[in-house]
């Protein structure tokens, strides 16, 4: 097992998590391609890493008054409802198209974020 490389990949994942507030976007592909983690294990393991990582990030944001608890609650409730619908819809949708639409929305929103 590549211990040194694991720590480095973990560090980069942590920086992105803390700086940008996103989960483990780069972690799953990094584990598969650089650490030879098998696919079945990669998602579960990634989640296991992201939880303590996000906990640390959230704590720092909270200390700086950058967590809106009231908003977080509402988002969590809506999110649970939505994810139930999404999981049901999973087998009915063509994922290639979902991915493409997702990519287009990401790019459009990204442009607005950079320009705005």
């Amino acid at each position: 097992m590549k211990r040194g490389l694991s720590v480095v990949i973990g560090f980069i994942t942590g920086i992105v998590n803390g700086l940008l507030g996103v989960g483990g976007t780069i972690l799953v592909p990094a584990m598969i391609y650089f650490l030879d983690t098998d696919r079945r294990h990669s998602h579960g393991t990634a989640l296991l890493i992201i939880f303590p990582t996000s906990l640390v990030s959230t704590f720092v944001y909270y200390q700086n008054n950058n967590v809106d608890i009231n908003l977080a609650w509402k988002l969590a409730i809506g999110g649970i409802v939505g994810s139930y619908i999404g999981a049901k819809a999973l087998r009915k949708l063509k994922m290639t198209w979902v991915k493409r639409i997702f990519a287009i929305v990401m790019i459009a929103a990204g442009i607005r974020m950079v320009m705005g």
Partner: protein
Amino acid sequence: MDTMIVVIISIAMGFLLGLGVGGGKLLIPALVLLLGITQQIAQGTTLAVFLPISLIAIITHMREKNMSYTHALYLVIGSVVGAYLGAKIASNIDTDHLRKIYGGFMLIIGAYEMVSKDPKTRLHYKKPKEA
């Protein structure tokens, strides 16, 4: 705060999560662009929302034994340190700058999703009849 917008945003985010497409990545810009909150609060709040959600997902994966604990240990050592530094940096930079950095990140991810044959997608495709 516009409750209707929050309801729509949250359900849409959850829907993407359920599909296995990153919901958090779009939640942050949605909060910034539609609710007009600062980039820092959008990021901090999103991180908080995902804590209970990922906890539930971890339990599910543990039951299915989809974990590699030795791999996780070394990755966590690096990621916790990185998270602390990253969050400190985010808290100390101008919100407009942070938003632009986030926007740049979105463009990269968007372009990647556009061209990649994502392993996540294939994983979901295989699932139904294999078990």
